[in-house]
């Protein structure tokens, strides 16, 4: 009934109402995926932990001089996860590490998806030599071993978080570009694109107003999945000693543990928490991505 109350003179209000309705529908269907909800809850928990880390553990958690425990102390009531090789509180370090891992994962995924989206939409919209050249380059990046290329880039550039973000971002975009291009090609055959063109809509208008909104849902699912692999890649690069040595991250903690000989000494409590944190967050993003995907494309048949 509410739709009839909106006067025809306010198309913007109508559009917003439709958007709200479709968001509500999306959420209703998403909620039916138990794994997706579980993943989302885990993410919310980790994001809250990361945001509240300065209050929970204090920013001096990575301070070597005022460390609360003795080096490689076993878990106890005071230090539930034990202490690292400098005697720092491992629980605090793991909570603090969430900040870097989530930040790098998000930024790298945003960079990767942004590149992939621009390339995919333009390659699908403009045909001819531009698309040919661009897709050649994409194909070439696609066959490069991502991890090896990221390691090479991180080695070449200076050690910083930005380096890691760039190394992951510029090596993972081709899959997104391919997906977005396929979707763009499909959208561009629809009659309303022809109508927009006939009414004098330019390239920018068609790409931003007609193609992009149709590609966005796909991009959303893809982003969630890419964050998951970006977090794993960040941990991997940090573990190989290519991360920023001045910040605490989960991969860096594992590298510390290995260098301190925690493996051969059997100090399992040093290794377990950072790895579980990485796995939980990566899994949570994957579960969310799959739930979003199956809401958008029910034919995939993801188990609820």
């Amino acid at each position: 009934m509410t739709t009839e109350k909106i006067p025809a003179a306010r198309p913007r209000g109508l559009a917003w109402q439709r958007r709200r309705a479709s968001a509500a529908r999306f959420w209703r269907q998403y909620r039916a995926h138990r794994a997706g909800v579980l993943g989302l809850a885990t993410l919310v928990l980790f994001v809250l932990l990361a945001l509240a880390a300065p209050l929970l553990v204090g920013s001096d958690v990575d301070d070597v001089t005022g460390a609360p425990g003795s080096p490689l102390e076993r878990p106890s009531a005071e230090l539930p996860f034990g202490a690292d090789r400098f005697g720092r509180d491992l629980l605090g370090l793991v909570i603090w590490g969430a900040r870097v891992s989530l930040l790098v994962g998000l930024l790298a995924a945003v960079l990767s998806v942004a590149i992939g989206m621009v390339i995919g939409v333009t390659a699908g919209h403009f045909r001819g030599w531009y698309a040919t050249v661009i897709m050649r380059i994409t194909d070439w990046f696609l066959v490069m071993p991502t991890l090896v290329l990221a390691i090479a880039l991180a080695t070449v550039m200076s050690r910083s978080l930005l380096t890691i973000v760039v190394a992951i971002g510029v090596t993972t975009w081709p899959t997104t570009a391919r997906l977005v291009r396929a979707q763009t090609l499909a959208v561009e055959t629809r009659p309303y694109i022809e109508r927009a063109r006939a009414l004098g809509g330019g390239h920018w208008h068609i790409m931003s107003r007609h193609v992009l909104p149709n590609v966005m849902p796909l991009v959303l699912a893809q982003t969630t999945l890419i964050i998951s692999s970006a977090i794993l890649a960040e941990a991997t690069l940090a573990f190989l000693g290519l991360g920023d040595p001045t910040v605490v991250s989960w991969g860096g903690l594992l590298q510390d543990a290995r260098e301190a000989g925690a493996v051969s000494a059997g100090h399992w409590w040093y290794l377990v928490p950072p790895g579980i944190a990485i796995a939980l967050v990566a899994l949570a993003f994957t579960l969310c991505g799959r739930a979003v995907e199956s809401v958008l494309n029910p034919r995939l048949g993801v188990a609820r």
Partner: protein
Amino acid sequence: MTSDATSASVGASTGAAAGPVKDGPAAARGPRGGRGATAYPRYVAGKVAGAAVSLLAVLVTSFFLFRLIPGDPVKFMTGGRQVSAEQLAVYREQFGLDLPLWQQFTDYCGKALTGDLGTSYQFNAPVVDKITEALPNTLLLTGTAFVLYTVLGIVLGTRSAWRNGGFGDRFHTGLALTLYSLPSFWLGLLLIVTLSVGIGPLPGLFPTGGMESGGGEEGFAYAVDVAHHLVLPVVTLVAVEYGQTLLVTRSALLDEMGSDYLTTARAKGLRDDLVRRRHAVPNALLPTVTLIFINLGRTVAGVILVETVFSWPGLGGLFYQALSVPDLPLVQGLFFVFAAAVIVMNTLADLIYPLFDPRVGR
């Protein structure tokens, strides 16, 4: 021309549905249909030429990328010892570092085409020798893991799809997703701690690393020793890799399950098991075939971490060693080998795919 439209739509659907397998061979460009017997050789020629261009591009990239590393490679070679200026000059000349960059580049390309990838700074041995030395070890590790995770992925994926939504399906998909989210190096470290070093009462069952005990065993005893060292790295690789094959097989089979010909097969009285094995699975395996080849290339490049963690004397471990120096010629050479493995395998997938699926490339 209808074939153009078909090939475009096939490309789009594989790209969207197969997830990680980005449209692969189905992306055959332009009209290729309706030309009879000449179409496949032309398709092959196109793919091979494309691969050759990619390989050349990798060669060029690997040269320039690693010249960007700050620092003087000669300094690394001398390992911080006090060396006279003359000696440094000798080193520079020996490795051709005194020449202008473009001349280094032409030398590098010329040599690479004759199969010479330069001399390693670190080992003072030809890069090609170091690579051929490590290659069999990597192939042993990745080959074993590859066979196991492919079989495991396909078998479990098929069963999951067949009992879609059941307990087994949910269990296996969940487990595969969880293992897929684990960092491989962490799983490796954890396996070493629990099964090699041993916690508390647990004895160390497996060696902590390397490929052989070095006790001078021969023949069968040596093979058993290597197999013993192989267990944990292979388990790690299989655990983190089989999930993808499982998920792709499962979703491909689910796509296929609604098809009319399966209903027909069952309606004519075939047993469930036969319908699955003879009718559904062969068709559903098409996207998996592409994935298998891509995986084969990717696994060779992806063993860097597992080999590093388990001190396996293969290409990945060598890459890690070379990076920490950095030993430019070796890093360059390995980078080329890793990329070439992926390119060659992708091309093979492109070439074989039309033999399985006549809709593509004819």
